[in-house]
């Protein structure tokens, strides 16, 4: 059992007690809710005549279902309209702050909480969304939950949980040009597998992680769940504090020093014990692309799609399923694969720095003739900031569509969908069968700069050949 890690310290501080089952009752410092996984939870509260115990520690936004072209109400999709109306009503009735469309603060829940300064080191955070692991970038313990657990947090601000083990994932060295945080996380998942993290919290450490911006750390922590780990985190440091200072919900100046002192104390001790330690070298990480139907089926952009014989026995059945579904041949290069749609956005890679990196590749270029390419900023604030730098102009001049904020084609609950067996280059997080809205649609996951490269080339190419000198 781990001791002395940030995970252990935060867990202990938030422990309310031990339940009859032996599980821990854990206090949740911040509860984020959205339109998809909360309506049934509010219905359960009503059935049981329960109230929201800490409405001031709950924040709502709408992200999964929002259209990214016209956002006029009522939405054309009657079901989507019903969902946003349910959230509006539930937030009003329970005194929960709701960042609605047009508020200036709406966006993907995992983008807006950090940008508002709501996400802070040492917190426990829960949300009915598996990518809640994102918030671990700040040294928070953050995990995704289902709707019955959303009910539990609304009613009690606590969860019944068993403690996780802690695996330290150390990555050292400088990332080569053209290799981004997305490649780091795809590489980790490729190496440790999509179920390697089950039962673990991942602590990301090492000089590569220390050198990353908060937005890069969020990308890495975001995809912890794709490696099976319910949460991932980075110990807070000066980068974290610089990001937070002055944000809307961050501690004010009179309490700032006390806050930093508290956060510093929560960092994993130098002599902390871990349940497992894994070490990677940044220099070994290539621009990475997925070829299959799980995020673990990734390869370097210059590699070939693995043959069946090269894979461990347990991975072969899913590989065969992937060859069939993706219509890709084992032993052939992934580079050169023709692309129909390019999507830049999502809670993984829809932040300002992601758009900047993609824009560097796009500047002065044109989207290939038969490619549909679009950019969906992660939040209203990201959109405004990008526009103030002229990024929208760069994308539009190249032939990209510039959209409103939301989850969009990461999971295609809104009108943005692949058609038929179209193949997308996507900066999102999941390449599952049917994920992007068509039951035969195909997804290649990669960094935003690699998506931009694919948009210009019309096929998968190595971003390193497209970076401005």
């Amino acid at each position: 059992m781990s001791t002395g890690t940030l995970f252990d310290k935060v867990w202990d501080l938030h422990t309310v007690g031990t339940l009859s089952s032996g599980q821990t009752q854990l206090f949740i410092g911040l509860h984020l809710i959205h339109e998809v996984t909360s309506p049934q939870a509010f219905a359960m509260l009503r059935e049981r005549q329960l109230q929201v115990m800490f409405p001031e520690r709950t924040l709502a936004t709408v992200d999964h279902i929002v259209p990214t072209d016209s956002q006029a109400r009522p939405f054309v999709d009657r079901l989507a309209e019903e969902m946003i109306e349910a959230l509006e009503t539930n937030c009003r009735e329970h005194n929960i702050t709701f960042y609605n469309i047009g508020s200036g603060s709406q966006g993907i829940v995992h983008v807006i909480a950090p940008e508002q300064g709501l996400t802070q080191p040492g917190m426990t955070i829960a949300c009915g969304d598996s990518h809640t692991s994102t918030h671990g970038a700040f040294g928070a313990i953050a995990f995704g939950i289902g709707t019955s657990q959303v009910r539990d947090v609304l009613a009690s601000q606590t969860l019944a949980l068993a403690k996780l083990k802690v695996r330290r994932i150390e990555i050292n060295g400088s990332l080569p040009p053209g290799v981004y945080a997305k490649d780091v996380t795809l590489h980790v998942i490729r190496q440790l597998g999509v179920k390697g993290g089950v039962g673990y919290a991942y602590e990301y450490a090492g000089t590569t992680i220390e050198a990353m911006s908060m937005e890069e750390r969020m990308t890495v922590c975001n995809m912890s769940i794709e490696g099976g780990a319910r949460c991932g985190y980075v110990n807070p440091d000066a980068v974290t504090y610089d990001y937070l200072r002055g944000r809307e919900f961050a501690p004010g100046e009179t309490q700032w020093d006390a806050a930093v002192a508290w956060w510093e104390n929560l960092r994993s001790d130098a002599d902390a014990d871990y349940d497992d330690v894994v070490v990677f070298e940044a220099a070994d990480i290539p621009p990475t692309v997925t070829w299959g139907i799980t995020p673990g089926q990734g390869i370097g952009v210059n590699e070939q799609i693995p043959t069946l014989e090269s894979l461990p026995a347990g991975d072969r059945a899913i590989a065969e399923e992937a060859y069939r579904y993706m219509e890709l041949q084992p032993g052939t290069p992934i580079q050169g694969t023709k692309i129909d749609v390019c999507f830049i956005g999502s809670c993984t890679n829809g932040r300002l720095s992601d758009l900047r990196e993609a824009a560097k590749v796009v500047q002065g270029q044109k989207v290939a003739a038969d490619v549909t390419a679009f950019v969906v900023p992660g939040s209203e604030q990201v959109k405004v900031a990008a526009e103030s730098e002229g990024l929208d102009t760069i994308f539009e001049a190249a032939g990209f569509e510039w959209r409103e904020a939301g989850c969009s084609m990461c999971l295609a609950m809104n009108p943005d969908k692949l058609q038929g067996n179209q193949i997308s280059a996507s900066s999102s997080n999941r390449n599952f069968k049917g994920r992007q809205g068509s039951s035969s649609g195909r997804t290649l996951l990669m960094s935003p700069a690699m998506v931009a490269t694919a948009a210009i080339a019309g096929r998968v190419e190595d971003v390193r050949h497209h970076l401005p000198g």
Partner: protein
Amino acid sequence: MTSVTTVSGRGLPLPGNDIDTDRIIPARFLRCVTFDGLGEQVFADDRTQLKGEHAFDQPPYQDAELLVVNRNFGCGSSREHAPQAITRWGIKALIGESFAEIFFGNCVAMGVPCVTVSADVAATLQAQIAAQPQQPLTLDLNNLTVTMGELSAPVAIDNGPRQMFVGGTWDACGQLVSQATAIQATAANLPYVNWQRRSA
């Protein structure tokens, strides 16, 4: 509350590793404000593609109550719509090599046990159910066994969730809410709960 100690019924074999929750219930079916009707949509796209050959469409399995799966079942999205769809179709317990963590937690909160078995046992059960779909299985959480005809094999589940099923406390909500005083005390000891925000 209802304790869950044994689940008996016919089995449904669903071979395959890494079956994610997008496959269990595609995102377009999440456009809803209740879980009603999800049972009909379970594995919608997989079933359409297999044109009646999918296990959930096979006549011998229509009354099945125990789903037998393989590795990392329920990975991906946290959507409780996935186990809701499976249970509303008629499943009452799952047996598999391993389960994704959020899926497992959702099932606990719904009173649906997910127990693990070795790869060999999973394969044997799947084959035996396919050969004799009418023969019932019994999952016993007291003795941690699954039996089917002559076959009896050990199953595993962490002791916490097992206690919640056997003791009837799998719906933790009431127990959690009853600790209001302790919850307030824990909150009061967290510095960040009392910090003034910058803009206040």
